[in-house]
Structures are given as C-alpha cells and as structure tokens.
C-alpha cells in the first residue's frame, strides 16, 4: 500500500519534469528551425533572416514624433526613407539622386534661401501608391502644426523654414515679467493686448509647385550654413494615411496649407490610427508586424524601394528587432537567438563579447561615440557663474581615472564638447592635444579659488584654511556651496559622488556640495528650462551628435532659450555662430572655426567633459558584409549591404 503511494507521488512529480523536458525537447527542435528563424529552413538552406536585439522597450509607435525609444527609432530608420538629402559613406550630406530629379538654390532678398526640388516620378510607397510632392509638403505641414503638438508630438519638423513661427503659433506672443510666454487658461497664447494669437493657415516657407516639385525656404538666421543640406532635407509622409480623404494640400502662392476641416476633432482619430498602424512605408523595409507579447517587430523587404543614394537594396529578407535584457543579451547571441547587438557600451558586456569573439562564437566591430558625458554648470548663478570655480571643480576631479573606470577601458577622456568619433576630432588633433586637461591638482584648485576672490570665511574674515570659502559678491557673502542635481540609479552620478563630492580634497579646498537625487526627466527639465528657479549649479548629463550637424549656435548665444548653461561670452557666441557661416564645401574653414570654438570652450568650461565611449556591435558568424557602422551611420545603413551567409 505504502509502496503504491510512493510510486504515485513519484510519478506525479516525475510527470511534471518529463512534461517540461518534453516541452523543451519538442520546442528545442522547433526553436532550431525557427531560430532557423535563425539557422536553417526545412529545405536545408539558411533562412534569409536575422534577429537584432535591443535593450530598450519597444512601444509599437515607430514614428519618432511622439516617442523616442531606441528600438522604435531603429525600426523607423529602416522603414522611413527617400529623404531628399542622404548621408554618403564618408558621412557627407549629398542630394539623393534616387529621390531628386532636379534641384536648385535661390538666395532671396530678405536673406532667406530657397531650395526647389523636383522629385523623380518613379518613387512609390510600399503599397504601390506614387510618392509625390504633396507627401513631402504635407509631412512638413502636419508635423509642424500646432494641431500635432496637441497630440503630444514634437511639431518642429519645419523649424528651420521661414514662416514656421507664424504657422506653429508662437509669433507675436507676449511675455510676462519672468520671461514666460503669456498663456490663457485654455493654453492659448496671448499677445500684448491679451488677444489670442492666431496661427497662420499657410506655411510661408513651404511651397507646393506641382505634382513632383516643391520648395522650402530657410530662415535668414540659418543662411548661410555649413550644414544647409541637412536643414533643407525633407522626407515623405503618407498623407493618405495621416489625414482623412477630405483634407488636401494646396498652395495659392502664400505657402502650402491644408484644405478642409483641419481640426483635431476631425483629423485626430485618423492620425492616432495611422500612428499605431502605419499604412505605407518609404524605406528599405516595411513593418510586417509588431508583437506586444514578444516585444518584437518583424520587418520585410519593401519591394517598391529603389535603393539608397547608390541604388543599394537590402538582401536580408526579414529583419526582426526584439527586446533583450542587458544582463543576458550576450547569452542570446551565444545561443543564436539573436544575430546582432548594436551599440554595446557597457564595459562588462563588451568584455564578454570580446571573449566570445576570441572563441570564434561572434564577430564584432567597434567605433567611437559621437558624443560625450559631462557635468553641466549653470554659468549665471551661484558659485559656478565664476570661471575660477568651474576650473577648481575640474582640478578636483580625477577625470582620467573617472573615464577609465566608467568606460572600463572602452572609451577615453575628452576636454571639450566633442566625441572621439567625430571627424573634427581626428582632423584637429593638434588643437585637441593643446587643450587644458585640468589634471588633478588640489594646489591648482586652491590657486584658482584664491585668484577668483574666494578668500573669505562666513564672517567675512580672511579664509583660515578650514570650512567653506566665501566670496564678496556685490557686498554679499556667497558661500562656495554647489547644489548638484543628479539622476537616480545612475552610475555616473555614483562615481561623481565618490570621486568628487566625497573627495576629502574638495573639503580641504573649501567647497561644500549638496547632492539632490531626482528622476532623469526632472533633472533634464531643470537643465533645459531652469524651472527650479536657478537652485541647482550643476547637472551630470550626456550628449550625442547623431548626425554630422554640429550646430552649437543657439546653445551658446547670449540670452538664447537653448543656451542651457546660461554662459554669456561674446567670443564663444561669435565662434559658435561663425562655424555655421562657413560655406558648406569648405571643410578647412569650418575646422579652423571649430578648433577656435573648442579652445575657447575649454578655457571657459561651461561644462566639464568626463568621457567619450567606444561602442561595439557584436554579431553572429552568419551575418556577413556588415561593416561601416559609425556614430553617424547606424546599423540600418550597414544592413543594406550585409547578407546572411548561405541564404538563397
């Protein structure tokens, strides 16, 4: 009897394990066939498909106007194409001959500049519909409109074009005593008389000329510009999908506009539907499906796509983007459930990937980041408004060690607002070498503070060498107290806390730091819009230059709302402006201005650069021809030339 029970119990326990194992075995083979998906198909040939892993959560919202997740953005880059301006293999902007039949530039009397484009008449959407000028003009109109802003989108697509401010609705708005725009209780902008500012119906800088011709006019303040081609670029949007049938695009000579009832009540539902269910694509791939359960996009080749600027078409039939976890993504590559991991920056993960490459289990390529991490100072308030204080902070942080530890050897220290992957960094190596590296030195920090007048104590007497330093600022004693805003769960914040804030030399020098931890968004808000009323003196952030456009003009113009560090230096502002005024073909002139700008920036230190990473792409042996990835040319460019080894 008891033996029976024993057997029964054991059988029950065993049956579960066997069941599980059976599940594993059955589907182990199914996985092989579908990771034939990643390896082999039924016919014995390798499936023409790759799986790309990405650590960010996909949302199903591919368009970059609303959200900006990296995985969604990567998909968008593969399904959205036919921009009038392309980036060639040398990372230079060119007119895309596949898209543009003819183009011309006109300098206008008011200082603006117009580019007129005639499209090739053989461009088609993935569903076979012809791509016309209305798709380009309509895209600019829609994604510059105040209506699209109401849906939560950015609405700045036509920012560089003449008439944008009037069309978007910010022209003529009054400001209050604090410099904020005056808004009524319904969110309407008001002018100086309290009247609601009406937005312009037409976008005066955008013209629809004929079925395949349109023009865009650059604002005078951006003319000339070294990066004018990038500013002039325009891409098509499938207007049949974005707007109801009774809305059309017209131009009576004053600028393009939407006909009919272009109100949120009328078009909102159509826009929302298109946002989540894109109807047609203009890039090399189409979104076949998005699976919210597996968090994966499946892309298939767009048969209607004519190729990139070189006419190159993709050969990999299916691309799957799926969410992977940072902790196990290398295991996924090792086990074949992903074929490509793009832009790996974490030191430990890179080391694991390199070990796999040594074992012959993966390939890799590496490239430098076009960006950098930094501590941003608020330069018009508190102690950090004084350059000597910023210098002293720089001397008190061992940035060499910081960069080494943070990047774990896969990155380097930078001394200005640049990344090691930018072409200027290599071309102006002499300038880079001559920059002040602010090598760690307590003596230099103290000397800077003494020179800057931080020589008093809390009572206004001469600083005794202990406690917090003070400075007489217009008759008031200002303590050398730095309020630092940092984001939570951030390793850079932790390292700054350890290597700077808790550094005994910092106290010895007479500093006091107060650290406030907040969400990243809150910190960004404080940095961008100063909504904490100048409370914080420094933020730790990172910045990228994902395109070759290096436009620092507004960021350093005195009084500009985009001057987030609030630095007011005429020379720096002039250099930032002059850089852009170079002729787009004169690289040497640009480089000269860029070098001068970097040198001046390095003197003033509106921010303290910390590191610039090295990125790695790890991929399986089956992916061949995958090369040429850089900070400017993402995996989507390389995938056009790549192929699956052994696929038909």
């Amino acid at each position, binding site marked *: 009897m008891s033996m029976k029970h024993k057997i*029964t119990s054991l059988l*029950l326990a065993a049956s579960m394990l066997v069941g599980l194992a059976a*599940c594993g075995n059955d589907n182990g083979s199914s996985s092989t066939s579908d990771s034939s998906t990643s390896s082999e198909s039924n016919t014995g040939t390798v499936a023409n498909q790759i799986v790309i892993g990405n650590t960010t959560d996909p949302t199903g919202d591919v368009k970059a106007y609303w959200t900006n997740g990296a995985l969604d953005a990567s998909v968008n880059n593969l399904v959205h194409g036919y921009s009038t301006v392309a980036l060639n293999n040398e990372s230079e902007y060119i007119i895309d001959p596949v898209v543009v039949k003819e183009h011309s530039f006109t300098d206008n009397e008011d200082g603006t500049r117009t580019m007129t484009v005639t499209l090739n008449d053989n461009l088609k959407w993935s569903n076979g519909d012809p791509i016309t000028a209305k798709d380009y003009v309509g895209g600019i109109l829609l994604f510059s409109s105040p209506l699209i802003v109401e849906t939560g989108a950015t609405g700045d697509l036509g920012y560089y074009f003449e008439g944008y401010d009037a069309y978007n609705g910010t022209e003529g708005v009054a400001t209050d005593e604090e410099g904020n725009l005056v808004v009524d209780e319904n969110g309407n902008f008001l002018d100086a008389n309290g009247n609601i500012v009406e937005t312009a119906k037409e976008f005066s800088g955008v013209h629809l000329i004929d079925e395949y011709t349109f023009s865009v006019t650059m604002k005078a303040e951006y003319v000339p510009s070294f990066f004018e081609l990038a500013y002039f670029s325009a891409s098509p949007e499938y207007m049949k999908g974005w707007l109801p049938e009774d809305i059309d695009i017209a131009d009576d000579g004053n600028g393009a506009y939407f006909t009919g009832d272009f109100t949120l009540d009328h078009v909102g539902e159509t826009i929302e539907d298109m946002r989540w269910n894109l109807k047609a694509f203009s890039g090399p791939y189409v979104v076949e499906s998005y699976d919210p359960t597996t968090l994966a996009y499946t892309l298939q080749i767009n048969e209607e796509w004519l190729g990139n600027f070189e006419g190159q078409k993709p050969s990999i039939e299916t691309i799957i983007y799926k*969410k*992977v976890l940072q*902790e196990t993504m290398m295991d996924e590559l090792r086990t074949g*459930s992903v074929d490509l991991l793009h832009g790996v920056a974490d030191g430990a993960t890179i080391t694991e990937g390199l070990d796999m490459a040594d074992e012959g289990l993966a390939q890799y390529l590496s490239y430098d980041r076009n960006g950098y991490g930094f501590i941003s100072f608020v330069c018009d308030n508190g102690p950090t408004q004084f350059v000597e204080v910023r210098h002293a902070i720089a001397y008190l942080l061992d940035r060499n060690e910081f960069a080494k530890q943070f990047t774990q050897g896969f990155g380097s220290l930078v001394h200005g607002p640049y990344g090691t992957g930018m072409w200027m960094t290599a071309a102006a190596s002499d300038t880079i070498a001559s920059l002040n590296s602010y090598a760690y030195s307590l003596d230099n920090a103290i000397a800077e503070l003494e020179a800057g007048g931080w020589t008093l104590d809390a009572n206004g007497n001469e600083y005794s060498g202990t406690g917090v330093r003070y400075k007489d600022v217009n008759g008031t004693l200002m303590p050398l107290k730095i309020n630092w805003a940092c984001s939570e769960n951030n390793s850079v914040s932790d390292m700054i806390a350890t290597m700077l804030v808790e550094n005994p030399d910092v106290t010895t020098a007479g500093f006091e730091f107060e650290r406030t931890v907040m969400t990243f968004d*809150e910190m*960004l808000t404080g940095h961008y*819009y100063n909504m904490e009323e100048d409370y914080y003196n420094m933020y730790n952030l990172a910045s990228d230059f994902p395109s070759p456009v290096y436009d620092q003009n507004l960021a350093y113009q005195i009084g500009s709302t985009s001057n987030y560090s609030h630095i007011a230096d005429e020379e720096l502002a002039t250099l930032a402006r002059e850089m852009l005024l170079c002729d787009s073909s004169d690289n040497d002139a640009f480089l000269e201005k860029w070098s001068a700008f970097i040198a001046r920036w390095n003197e003033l230190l509106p921010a303290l650069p910390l590191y610039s990473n090295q990125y790695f792409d790890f991929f399986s042996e089956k992916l061949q021809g995958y090369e040429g990835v850089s900070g400017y040319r993402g995996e989507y460019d390389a995938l056009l030339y790549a192929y699956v080894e052994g696929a038909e």
Partner: protein
Amino acid sequence: MLKYIGKRLFYIVCVFFIISIIFFFLYNAIPGDRAMMQIAHLQGKVSEEQFQRMYQDVRNQLGLDDPAIVQYGKWMGGILTGDFGFSTFYKQDVIDVVVDPMKNTIFINVFSVILALAVTIPLGIFCAVKKNSAFDKGVQVATIVGYSVPVFIIGLVCIFVFAVKLGWFPVSGMGTPNFQGTPWEAFWDKLYYLCLPLIVMTLGSLGGMTRYVRAAMIDALGQDYIRTARAKGLREKVVIFSHAWRNALLPVVTLIIGWFLSIFSGSLMIENMFGLNGMGKLYITALMNQDYDLAMAVQLFYVVISLVGNLLVDLSYGIVDPRVRITE
C-alpha cells in the same frame, strides 16, 4: 448567507474608496510633476515657448491646478467610468497599456499555479504519510533550501545551466519572433519559451506549499478519527485520501484560493529576469518612470483582487467545512 455577502460587499466598497484615497494622496505626495512627466520626452526637441504651452495644456488637462479633493473626484470618476488615465511612459491610455501584460501574466501564472499544486500536494501528502523517512527528510531539506534561496538566484542558475550551457530553453522572451505556424504550434512555442520561467517560479514556490500540506496532513493523520478509521479496517488509501486529506484540506484550501487569485499579479523578479511582458514588469516600469496613472491603476486592481479574494476565502471556509456556518 446572502445577507453576509451583501454586507461584505458593502465593506469592500468602503475599503476600496478608503484605500484609493490613501493611494491617491500618497502618489501625489511623491516629488515630481505629472504634467512634466507627460511631456518630458519633448524636452530640448521643441522650443521653450512650445514647451511652456504644452506644459500648461497638460496641467489644464490633468487638472493639476485644481484643489486636491477635486483632482481625486475627477480621477475616481474616471476610474468608475472605465477611464484609468493616460500612461506618461507608454504615451497611451492606461487601459490599452495593461491589456497585453495582463493576458501574459494570466497565461504564465495559470500554468505556474497548476504545476506547483500538482507537485506540492502529492509531495506534501507523501511526506506526511512517510514522516521521518529518508525521502521525507530529503524533501524537508530541499524545501528549506528552496524556501530560503531567493528566486533570482534560482533563476540565474537555471538560465546558466538550462539555457546557456545545455541550450534546452531560450534565454529570455515569450515566443519566437515572427513565428510561422498554426495557432496550436504557436501555443507550444510560447509554452516552450515559458518553460524555464515556469520551472523557476514553481521551484520558488515548492518549499512553502509542500511544507504547509505536509504539516496539515500530519496534523490530520494524528487525529482520533484516523485511528478509528484504521480500526474499522478501512484501506490505507481510503484513510489517507477520504479521511485525512479532506480534513487537511481545510487550512490548505485558503492558501490554494490565494494562489489562484495571484494569477493576476505578475512576478517582478521573474518577469524582469526573463524579459516577460507581464504585470510585474509593467508595474515596476510604471513606478520607475513615475507613471502614476498606470501605477495607481495596477495597484487599485490588486486592491480589488485582494478584497474579493478575502471574501472568497471566507466563503470557501463555509463550503469546505460544514462546521463553519456563515451567517453574519
């Protein structure tokens, strides 16, 4: 009975509102600006002027300038009419965000609970019957270890052994992307992906339940009526399953009902470790990103589940134990 249920339902409604008020004011006391969170992704992409206008629009829309009690009224009014708010992280209505993770969590947990019960109940019974045998002692040690080891350790070990080294299971995910096959094959594919997390979840919950069932059975087997049954000459099988197990079931049944209710709640650890798109992952994502509408909606849902669960447990006492009469 009906009177009792009606009374309990009334209490549930009262408790729900009290908890909702506490939640609402707690979440609102957390530092941070909901309007800012909603448009934070546009920072630096739009001009300051545009940003200010959008910020004010969202504040108006969310009624953040209203008195707190008015805000609560609007929020609760929305909840009662099926409008759970807007997810600032996913940029969608909360109700749309929750659907898929909820389906996934239920799918995972149904299997997990069934598996765990299928193992623990027979194992607990067997150990009780074979009390102090070598097998029982082995199981006791194993369940103590299983009970003590954090589930993420079990998870990491399982991933390393079964996914990386042996290659039996996928490392993470909920299905083969772009899977081509019949719905039945798709179901098996999904189950294959869920095998490893299910094993980990089951292993993680074996210890407690096994020991609970064993203790209840030992208690029941020591009762006089068992001795009487054996004295009557009943077969041991009948004694164990008809007499002992039915009585041992009384304390266990409440636990089992609790387990079944837990199919709605996701596992923070397992879902994050295996990249499963479930309620646990959704909840932690909402909290980490200050997505208050979403976090509050998920939490309120759990409140309802708990309250209803308590009622069901109490009612089940009356059903499984004739000695308990629920009248008030």
